[in-house]
């Protein structure tokens, strides 16, 4: 049934329907509504789960590691500094092969303080071994959260469902919420690959010396390599039941496009509108939406971009000294392909600044009118200010 829901509530609904057994939570804006709604569900008996009100994000994820070792389905949510504070535990979770699901609501990192949308928080955790799935709207957030449990438990890797501060988290949209029985058909009770039990004593995560550490890491790599295929399987099952499908990437009008815009998250919605306008005006433009970032879907990206002359990667994130993070990854994916397109990079919307259709159209024009891309990402819409530090 369609309900008008805040993006954060859409996450919470999916967690309820997934019959999560242990939730651990620490508040941070703009994520907090997710765990508030879940605490209501636990208090009212709508969910049969243990809810741990921990004292920090480090403990938040550590508690879920303990719970997942105990063989139950687990969930948490965080943003920004909270995710950064989890950093050690992010590695530990993936290394332990625990299928923990986390909603990560993109928010800029300090300093200076900023609570608005910016992907640098999640993208700077790209090497921690988590699957990362970026979402565009409330429905996708709901669907992806359900899919995340299925995927995580299939490959025994943790999944980060990435949404955006305010643009998704606090925005009300119609979201189709299925019945519990339908969700149960898609997501059976969790059957863990292992669980700590006194009847069958074993040790989890003892020291692995150089003679075995690489093999354990390689196991991890193989599981991650399997993800694009397994995600496709999960989506097929999901589509049969719910008639919706997203893809690791979504390529729109890419086959005959000369210039392709590459986006992720909510910027994609704005780019869809621009694409219609430009196509109406006869421009040969395409759009590639990146949903999956880890593992990076190299095959799908290269296939979508292969016929383009130019690609414009639009990043609402920033790696100091290296530019946009999606830009780096798209370039790296294409670098060994013949006839690869020129790759242009743009930084927009940091710390929640609006990215309008006009901004995206400027980027399209700049790309069309440039012959050679800059090595660095080009910053779009900077105001002139005089407060630079230094001499």
């Amino acid at each position, binding site marked *: 049934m369609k309900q008008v829901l805040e993006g954060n509530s859409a996450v919470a609904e999916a967690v309820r329907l997934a019959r999560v057994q242990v939730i651990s939570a620490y508040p941070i804006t703009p994520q907090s509504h997710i765990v508030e709604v879940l605490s209501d569900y636990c208090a009212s008996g709508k969910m049969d789960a243990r809810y741990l009100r921990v004292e920090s994000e480090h403990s938040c994820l*550590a508690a879920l590691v303990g719970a997942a070792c105990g063989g139950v389905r687990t969930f948490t949510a965080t943003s920004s500094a909270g995710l950064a504070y989890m950093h050690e535990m992010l590695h530990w979770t993936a290394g332990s092969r625990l299928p923990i699901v986390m909603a990560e609501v993109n928010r800029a990192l300090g300093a200076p303080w900023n609570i608005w949308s910016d992907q640098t928080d999640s993208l700077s955790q790209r090497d921690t071994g988590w699957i990362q799935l970026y979402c565009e709207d409330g429905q996708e957030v709901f669907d992806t959260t359900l899919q995340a449990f299925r995927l995580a438990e299939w490959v025994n890797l943790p999944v980060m469902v990435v949404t955006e501060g305010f643009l998704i988290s606090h925005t009300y949209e119609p979201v189709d919420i299925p019945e519990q029985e339908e969700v149960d058909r898609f997501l059976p009770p969790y059957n863990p690959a292992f669980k700590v039990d006194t009847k069958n004593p074993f040790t989890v995560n003892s020291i692995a010396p150089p003679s075995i550490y690489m093999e354990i890491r390689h196991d991890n790599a193989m599981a991650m390599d399997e993800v694009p295929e397994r995600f496709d399987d999960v989506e097929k099952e999901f589509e049969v039941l719910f008639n919706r499908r997203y893809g690791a990437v979504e390529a729109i009008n890419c086959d005959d496009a000369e210039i392709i815009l590459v986006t992720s998250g909510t910027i994609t919605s704005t780019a869809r509108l621009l694409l219609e306008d430009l196509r109406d005006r006869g421009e040969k433009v395409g759009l590639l939406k990146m949903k999956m970032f880890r593992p990076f879907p190299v095959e799908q990206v290269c296939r979508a971009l292969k016929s383009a002359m130019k690609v414009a990667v639009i990043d609402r994130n920033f790696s100091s000294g290296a530019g946009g993070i999606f830009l780096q990854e798209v370039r790296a994916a294409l670098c060994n392909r013949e006839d690869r397109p020129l790759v242009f990079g743009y930084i927009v919307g940091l710390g929640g600044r609006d990215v309008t259709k006009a901004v995206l159209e400027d980027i399209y024009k700049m790309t069309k009118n440039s012959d050679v891309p800059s090595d660095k990402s080009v910053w779009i819409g900077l105001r002139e200010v005089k407060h630079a530090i230094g001499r």
Partner: protein
Amino acid sequence: MRLDADEREFMCSGHAACPGCGAVIALRIFTKAMGENTILVIPASCTGVIVGVYPQSVMRIPVVHAPMPAGASVASGLRAALDMRGDTDTTVVAWAGDGGTFDIGFQALSGAVERNEDFIYVCYDNEAYMNTGIQRSSSTPYGAWTTTTPGQDWKRLRKKNIVEALVAHRIPYVATANIAFPEDLVRKVKKAKSIKGSKFLHIFASCPPGWRIPSEISVKTARMAVQANIFPLYEVEDGVRYTINYKGKQRPVQDYFEVQGRFSHLTAEDFEQIQKMVEEDWGLLQRKAGYQAADACIQSSSAQRAIKTNKVF
């Protein structure tokens, strides 16, 4: 004397500890007192290494290794999972060193016991970061040499009173124990196991390489800490009811300090000052215990001590 504990061993031979390691003595006695329905969560510490390198383990009970700050939080989550599974027979134990308890793990510990998580948290205390090579922790006592308090820069700060910090959380049970007093340790472990909510055991565990003592006096040295009132044996219920458990042979602190190389730089004046500090702490503890026993006659004199005891060794 036979211990009132499981006949079986839950720790096999072949562990990776140094000779005379107090942590191993503590873990062996502790697990025998706990029995097989026990899961250990071990944050980074000597014990994390001692219990075995993949693919071997010396433990016959399940072990979950955890990052150093995360002993109490991983244990909290594991308890929650067992509850959801309906497993009420198993006791979850976090087993951490002093660094993982007093320092980097303190926030998680404080959070977990404030929530009154149903687990036993054991801090085996060897008074420094021994696994990384004898660096000072906030448990390192006044006067000690470590590799980060070398030469004349020896530690001139008090050891953090972790027991009182836990007592301040008003948890159901806090107790100190010592590898040289196994019967007392076993009794406290069993008592902790029988109580619901957060239990904290602070076990004094000598470290021959870190304390610069020969391995054969490991237990004796730990015993002297109790006799010198440096590490009193006591327990606190519900944050208010204090019971001091040891009344026996008494020693000046100098006896305890003189056998250890880590204190070899201390002078007679230093010993005098440390003796005063220890007597002050001991007096404070006696007053706390005395408040609970109207018939106890408490005197601050270190020579004549009539204190409430429930066990005499």
